[in-house]
């Protein structure tokens, strides 16, 4: 972790559309690869002029430390991510990072439940790899509205048991990822839930964590400007203390203990 924070100009190794609208981008980024922990993110500069202006936050999806490579998994939505999707082998991309506070894990039982909704699986693959290396037993729940949004199942299967669910029933089960989570938490005694996905899912995770007593960590998204904690742009509401206190998603987060934050709609 003693790598200095830097704006890295990283060559693209490879970019593939792994499902309609979803991209897997591999980059040479040795310093980030060395320094990053699961749950951290990078800020990517998109475009060469001032529109789009702000960098885009993307989670670190995978890290190959020895090879000095990282990969990002993202959905091309707006101007920035669509620009990024147009980059190809050899192009340089500017990445600021690794940023933020990642997941923490120190269980004795080493039984973890990963919850990834849609592209929310992005930070979880890196986490799954690290946990598996520490010999955690993992169940990985992956949900999306349709099959096209169920991403990276095979990669996750290397690290644990994967269960998928879709809103339209186009994979094994039909329903919401929260229903899967409820079942899982009933059956087994988990040491930790690690979740990333839309706010509604994270709110559900907070509730289940509260009800079952299983500690959960959730990775939040908020609009960002600086990404380093200086501008106070990316806050969410914290629960600690008597007075209203906002926490910076880019600095105190993006990973929070489920009880640490209040999620509004």
């Amino acid at each position, binding site marked *: 972790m003693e790598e200095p924070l830097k*704006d890295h100009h990283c060559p693209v190794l490879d970019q593939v559309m792994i499902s309609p609208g979803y991209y897997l981008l591999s980059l040479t980024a040795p310093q980030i690869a060395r320094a990053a922990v699961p749950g951290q993110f990078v800020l990517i*500069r998109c475009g060469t002029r*001032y529109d*789009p*202006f702000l960098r885009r936050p993307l989670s670190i999806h995978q890290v190959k430390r020895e090879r000095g490579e990282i990969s990002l998994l993202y959905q091309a939505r707006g101007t920035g991510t669509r620009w990024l999707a147009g980059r190809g082998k050899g192009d340089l991309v500017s990445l600021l990072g690794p940023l933020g506070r990642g997941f923490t894990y120190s269980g004795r039982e080493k039984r973890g439940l990963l919850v990834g909704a849609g592209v929310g699986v992005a930070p979880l693959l890196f986490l799954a790899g690290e946990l598996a290396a520490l010999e955690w037993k993992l169940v990985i729940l992956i949900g999306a509205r349709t099959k096209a949004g169920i991403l990276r199942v095979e990669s996750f299967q290397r690290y644990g048991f994967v269960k998928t669910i879709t809103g339209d029933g186009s994979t094994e089960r039909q329903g919401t990822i929260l229903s899967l989570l409820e079942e899982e938490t009933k059956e087994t005694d988990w040491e930790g839930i690690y979740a990333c996905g839309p706010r509604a899912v994270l709110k559900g995770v907070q509730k289940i964590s509260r009800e079952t007593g299983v500690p959960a960590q959730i990775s939040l998204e908020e609009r960002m400007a600086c990404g380093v904690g200086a*501008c*106070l*742009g990316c806050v969410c509401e914290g629960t600690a203390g008597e007075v209203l206190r906002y926490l910076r998603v880019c600095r105190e987060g993006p990973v929070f203990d489920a009880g640490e934050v209040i999620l509004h709609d």
Partner: protein
Amino acid sequence: MIDLSVEIAGIKLKNPVMVASGTFGFGKEYASLFNLSKLGALVTKGLTLHPRPGNPPPRIWETPAGLLNAVGLQNPGVDFFLSEILPAMKSFEVPIIANIAGFTIEEYTQLASRLTVPGITGLEVNISCPNVKAGGMALGAVPELAAEVVEAVVKATSLPVIVKLTPNVTDIVALATAVTQAGAHSLSLINTLLGMAVDVNSRRPALGNITGGLSGPAVRPVAVRAVWQVSQAVDVPIIGMGGICTSNDALEFILAGASAVAVGSAHFRDPLAAVKIIEELEQYCIENGIRDWKQIIGAAWKGQN
């Protein structure tokens, strides 16, 4: 190496490039990215008498070549700043200008006198924040009220007083003249433009605070115009800001009449923007055979080519 130093209201800067209030926090976060002593000065996030939680999120919204922010002066309050933050800032070895925001004249004077301590080089009086209900722009848009604030602050401190003006007025020259007559030693131009966005998906305002302040390259022409107008009307040095991303942008402000510049939103795109601008300005002076860079301040209206 070229000497880029300049004196603003008695503050000696080793170069004319500062970082703008609110975009650089209290420096700590950027200190891991570069050596802050390279900067001309560091302007702190706006400080208030009491701690403020700030506005509810979302606080940031991207717009073409710019962004809206509605942070709402989140800060830990002046006491916490003095006891917990300022001491550590000394290691940055950069002049520190405290940006202060009150909700009454009384608050401004209290802030000014409490911040008149070793380690603070100057005060930037923010009477131009668009993101709070009382004070801020409400005081800063009326020349008489603005002048009252400034007069009181100047009395309350022995530090140089820089007054930061809002562009959201009909006549920025009248405002500038009023606060200069009231004793301002320097002016910062400009704070953000009052703007807003609607999120077409939710059909609701995009920002938690509804309106926000527009900054970034999009506003640069408005800022350059303000500097051009004001620098010809008043005798105090001007710190120009608004969308500066490159040395070319900085030069636009200097040629228009600014004696120094501040880099704000550009940090969000390139955290090293300010340092790069300093290096490029040196280069510019060398390439153009400019011995004393101060000779080009206001050259666009002084007609010295």
